[in-house]
């Protein structure tokens, strides 16, 4: 703690000498003229160009029917079939991607053409609405480039989303004549409905050589792990129906099946399930007697009851997603949208984006053979987990299923992560819904390490000009066995530190660093001189701590290296009358902060304080010359989610809160200021990270009836 009296002294002289008013006006005018001039020139010179380069201006406005027609000769080459042994290191030309500081791949899209065979019959629909949306999304994304020579990945504009609406051989010929085809190297195809009768292959049948396939409905036998990307089958209902998110919790039905035209064998199994478990299982099918104008896709029936689809999905906890002729089903998207937990029954199916998404958190996968046990399996899942799965399911839909754009960008990101693995998106970023990202804590010092005692600690003393007191602190602290270095941060720019010969002679190295500006944050700077993990921050007037107390504090810190371990404790309280936080320094049974006038902590937090402090807190603290300790408490608690450790009994510290020079009034101003800090920081952090605890750490034998000389730390709590 910095004493209030010094605090005002340490503020130092005013930095800007006051100018005479007349000159000030003159300078201001001059300055504004220069500024205005600059702005004006900027506007004139660069305005039109910035408009020119914005995308709206240049986008072509044409009809799909106007695109050039390409005639494919019957004997034009056909690519090889897909090579099942392809992997990124064998079939992908990584040299096209190169190293770039943004770590983004460049994606080129071929321009749209209409392909016809020799007789002028078209090969496929020119482009579907969904594929157009997908290409638009890529074009609008950061991945896009219009320069074919700089591209790392090529996306043909030939629409192969649905294999059923295209002619396989001719589509393959169309691919082969693309200008950069080169056996399909670095080409990416999107397909959602693969295969066709009678065998329904699980991957696109169009011969495509080395091209990567983003496919919906891969089985484990056709999916080339680490090369292909498994994508969802998009459900156009996503765009059509707005299902507001429903809070997690129990629903009317436990299991619901909404798919039409299921195989009779599955149908029989589901009905058996319903017969056994009654009304909690609802098996819907198509409606037979719908009036005209009602779309069958939006209705489902059970006996005579009619239900709205997909709304009905929100009425159930679990929704069955069975395989049909294909493995990938659009219903999965509807189910996720409804926040219903999908029960996936499709052996060998590669779930969408399974390379990055942890489906165990959002779905239940049940082997087909275990269908009869479905009910008991689902019943064994704890309610809490079901609720999280419901939330997770909805989040997956929102982030990766809801639009063609989401599907396209997730696919490109996955490929991007393979090419720049060291800049890849983490598991948490892919999988944690925003609410979890917000409430969970990932401690940067997560490994349970007890640092070796031999390392010792570095004491950092922030001082302004109280040399006498400083020297006493140095002498006292140097008696602590584990002290390995002493660092004095000389915060007074107007005065030189005392000469070397005047400093106390101590057994460890003593370094003085001079600061450029008198700022409180200098105390938390990660100086290179600090070579130990442990830092003892200590004020230049804390002389009442005994060597045992400091050594014990260091031992406690070793057991809790990710926490602030300090001596005087403080508490934050909610003031119900004022409806805000209040700072408390009385004798309380709880602590939530320790003062950094004497506290051990990990050097890493210096780094965080200096470079990663949220918002304007750091500047605010420097400007107010107060509350740097509260800021540190907030920072550490926020990043680790853990409480502070207060060590040893309370002592009378020389501090503004206990012995203010001006008596009560100054004391109160100080408390008000500190309360303000807490409120300010809580609003910047967006939460109250401080944790309240009721314990403090004492030596094992503290105050025990035992000979003092046999205790490791006898001199604790003495005044």
């Amino acid at each position, binding site marked *: 703690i910095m004493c209030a009296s010094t605090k005002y002294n340490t503020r130092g002289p005013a930095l800007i000498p006051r100018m005479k008013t007349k000159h000030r006006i*003159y300078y201001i005018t001059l300055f504004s003229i220069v500024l205005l001039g600059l702005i004006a020139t900027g506007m004139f010179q660069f305005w039109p160009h910035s408009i020119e380069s914005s995308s709206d201006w240049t986008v072509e406005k044409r009809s799909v029917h106007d695109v050039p027609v390409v005639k494919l000769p019957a004997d034009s080459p056909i690519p090889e079939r897909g090579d099942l042994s392809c992997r990124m*290191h064998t079939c992908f030309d990584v040299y096209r991607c190169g190293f770039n500081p943004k770590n983004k791949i460049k994606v080129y899209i071929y321009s*749209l053409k209409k392909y016809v065979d020799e007789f002028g019959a078209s090969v496929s629909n020119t482009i*579907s609405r969904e594929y157009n949306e997908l290409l638009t999304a890529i074009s609008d994304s950061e991945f896009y480039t219009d320069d074919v020579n700089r591209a790392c990945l090529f996306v043909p504009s030939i629409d192969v989303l649905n294999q059923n609406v295209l002619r396989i051989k001719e589509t393959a010929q169309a691919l082969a004549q693309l200008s950069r085809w080169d056996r399909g190297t670095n080409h990416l195809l999107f397909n959602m409905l693969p295969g066709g009768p009678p065998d329904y292959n699980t991957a696109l049948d169009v011969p495509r050589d080395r091209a990567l396939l983003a496919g919906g409905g891969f089985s484990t036998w056709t999916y080339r792990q680490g090369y292909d990307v498994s994508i969802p089958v998009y459900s156009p209902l996503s765009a059509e129906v707005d299902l507001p998110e429903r809070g997690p919790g129990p629903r009317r039905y436990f299991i619901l099946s909404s798919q039409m035209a299921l195989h009779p064998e599955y149908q029989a199994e589901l009905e058996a399930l319903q017969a056994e478990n009654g009304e909690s299982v609802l098996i819907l099918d198509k409606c037979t007697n719908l009036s005209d104008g009602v779309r069958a896709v939006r209705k489902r029936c059970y006996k005579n009851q009619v239900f709205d689809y997909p709304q009905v999905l929100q009425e159930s906890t679990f929704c069955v997603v069975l395989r049909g002729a294909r493995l990938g089903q*659009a219903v999965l998207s509807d189910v996720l949208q409804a926040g219903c937990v999908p029960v996936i029954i499709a052996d060998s199916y590669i779930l969408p984006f399974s390379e990055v998404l942890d489906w*165990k958190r959002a779905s239940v996968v049940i082997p087909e053979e275990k269908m009869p046990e479905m009910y008991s399996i689902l019943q064994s899942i704890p309610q809490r987990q079901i609720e999280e799965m419901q939330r997770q399911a909805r989040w997956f839909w929102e982030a990766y299923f809801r639009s063609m754009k989401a599907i396209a960008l997730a696919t490109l990101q996955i490929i991007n992560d393979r090419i720049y693995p060291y800049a890849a998106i983490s598991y948490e970023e892919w999988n944690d819904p925003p609410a979890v990202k917000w409430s969970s804590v990932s401690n940067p010092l997560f*490994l349970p390490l007890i640092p070796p005692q031999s390392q010792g600690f570095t004491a950092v003393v922030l001082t302004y000009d109280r040399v006498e007191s400083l020297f006493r602190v140095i002498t006292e602290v140097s008696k602590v066995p584990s002290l390995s270095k002493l660092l004095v941060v000389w915060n007074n720019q107007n005065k030189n530190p005392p000469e070397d010969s005047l400093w106390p002679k101590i057994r460890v190295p003593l370094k003085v660093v001079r600061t450029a500006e008198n700022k409180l944050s200098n105390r938390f700077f990660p100086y290179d001189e600090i070579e130990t993990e442990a830092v003892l921050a200590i004020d230049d007037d804390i002389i009442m701590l005994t060597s045992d107390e400091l050594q014990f504090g260091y031992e406690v810190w070793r057991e809790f290296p990710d926490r602030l371990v300090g001596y005087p404790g403080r508490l934050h309280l909610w003031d119900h009358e004022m409806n805000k936080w209040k700072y408390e320094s009385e004798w309380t049974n709880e602590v939530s902060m320790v003062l950094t006038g004497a506290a051990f902590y990990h050097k890493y937090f210096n780094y965080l304080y200096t470079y990663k402090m949220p918002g304007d807190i750091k500047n605010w603290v420097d400007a107010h010359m107060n509350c740097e300790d509260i800021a540190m408490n907030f920072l550490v608690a926020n990043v680790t989610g853990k409480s502070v450790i207060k060590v040893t009994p309370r002592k009378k510290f020389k501090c503004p809160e206990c012995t203010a020079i001006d008596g009560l009034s100054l004391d109160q101003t100080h408390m008000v200021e500190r309360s303000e800090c807490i409120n300010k920081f809580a609003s910047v952090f967006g939460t109250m990270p401080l944790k309240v605890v009721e314990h*403090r750490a004492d030596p094992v034998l503290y105050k025990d009836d035992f000979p003092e000389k046999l205790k490791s*730390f006898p001199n604790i709590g003495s005044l």
Partner: protein
Amino acid sequence: MQTRKKYIFLTFLASWLLIFFFGGDQLRRFAFFSGRKAEARRNWPHWTDRSLLKNFADPEELQRDGDPSLLSPQERRAAWLSVYKSSRCRMESCFDFSRCERNGFKVFTYPRERDQPISESYGKILASIERSRYYTPKPEEACLFILSIDTLDRDHLSAQYVRDVDEKIRGFPLWNGGQNHLIFNLYSGTWPNYTGDLGFDIGQAILAKASFDTESFRPGFDVSIPLFSKDHPQRGGERGWLSQDSVPPKKKYLLVFKGKRYLTGIGSGTRNALHHIHNGKDIISLTTCKHGKDWEKHKDTRCDKDNVDYEKFDYQELLHNSTFCIVPRGRRLGSFRFLEALQAACIPVLLSDGWELPFAEAIDWSKAAVVGSERLLLQIPSAIRCIHPEHVLAFQQQTQFLWDAYFSSVDKIVHTTLEIIKDRLSPHRSRSRFLWNTLPGGLLVLPNFSTHPGDFPFYYLQHGSSPSEKFTAFIRVVSQAGSLSQPILRLIQAISGSQYCAQILVLWSCEKPPPPSGKWPQTTVPLTIIQGRKKLSDRFFPYTAIQTDAVLSLDEHTSLSTSEVDFAFVVWRSFPERIVGFPALSHFWDPEQGRWGYTSKWTNELSIVLTAAAFYHRYYHSLFTEYLPEGLRDLVDGLSACEDILMNVLVAAVTKLPPIKVTQRKQHKETVPQQVKGTAGAAGSRHFSQRQDCLNQLVDWFGYMPLVSSQLRLDPVLFKDQVSVLRKKYPRLERP
């Protein structure tokens, strides 16, 4: 003065304006204004008729994806069995799940044949399985089978190569085409191509192999294991080398490599290029051509100079002092180097294209290693220089976690393999990737207990939840009296007075039946009697009656006050993964006798908190009963007062942290150990020496000493402070 300044300013201003008004055009053509920006970026067109485009599929067609003419699901599955064999095996097509349904996941090892020598490593693998909780000696109840033929080294030039494996396995009646078999292999193929060839037909067996390449790896079926040396410890294993977390990393070197350079043959592409990134300062990449018999025959101009440099650096020293370590492919894809770097907290930079990384089905390697591309070797230095110091710190810690959780001993490698296979059997009861990649790791998380992170003591912070606000008191009664003694009545009163108590369970482990319900004291919380099976390990059985996260474990003789219980519980909620309690012991190494000892005397340290009065998470009951092998529980049942030591050892092995002792009133400083048996003297000392035996046997089982010492005790904030008792929340703790 002033006027001069004014003119200077005016001139300055004027010149600026001039530059911009007249020179703007030229400026624009300069550097970044010029070039492509002036041209239009050709984006994907906004078609005027885009709203008229057809859907990619008819919505109804999307919802009715059936074709009744297709094979029925059963027929399809039957067809798989015949189509997807050997190299296309998957669990669905090559594994008989029904074998695992009756008796659960049981593993059988073939009896070893006398005349069949096996290598040290394979012996360790078999020993690991036989010691595990999944082992069964009966083939008829087994789900998985392990051969006794050593298949680790399948390089036919090697001395340990076993011949005629095909013939041998065909003679095994249990072989059944390899179905439900697990085959371990470390080396396959031989010079010059080092293919994945094993020299025998594994049929439908699962292959757990080192240096697996992604092409021959059967996803979801095979398991990629790390290459380990024959000196790899059976159990326990060395700890990682990271002793401090520093930001920025304070190591002498950024990136190091020291190893062979192949001038020809497979793998030479990368090994031959590694010297290019050496800069002699923070990147040390040393290669030698001096290996093999005829190295001089192939030697090139670099060799002699390289060999000299090579000798200047010590491999171990480089490993210790570098932030990143290059782990390139050798002749095979994996190398010892990988585990060495992992242990050394030297972040592996993998240059081994097409290597299926060890346990990649469970482990997220992107959190612990940099997966480089052999083709982009020269980009590696700049790529790793761009990695942020915070990420480096996270990487380093993750290497240590993974090393310790899955790799540091043969036991761990084998058990990880088994758990990965077990997880496939019931996908709904398996570990999520989060559980595998977060401390304490997948082996210590039992999916049978729960698959929800909030149910375990380890994930409250990451999960953003907190432990339940009530506890279950669990009192063990062993005394022979048959009636209720005064101490237990007082104890029940004190416990039920706690505002945090949800229920009291009494484990009645006496010969005589428990007194009728009328004899038990009336309490505000429910009191339930559980009839024990008179085994000491019973007290840690995961009784379904325990529904709260916290368990307060008590002995009948324990004397506690309500405020002690309240305070201890509040402390436990801050440390839910640890044991928090009252009477403590401290272990030590006795150099004279060469064994571990412990003392209950007053000491300045503690490492064991007795479960006669302690809070801990109920999950530890499940770990104790289901994770520990049966042999260990039998050991504990045979020794007196060993079960609470085992519990402490277990929790310390899981958390790597000491237990927490909280304030205790003076009078019961000697609750243990004498009171447990109620006799003093000879019996007491025998009891004491048994405990010492216990500790040493446990250390032997675990392979190392897991206990960690602590020098502190947690007291209430105002404990014995000079302030009015009226202000104190726990004044009763201070009464003498």
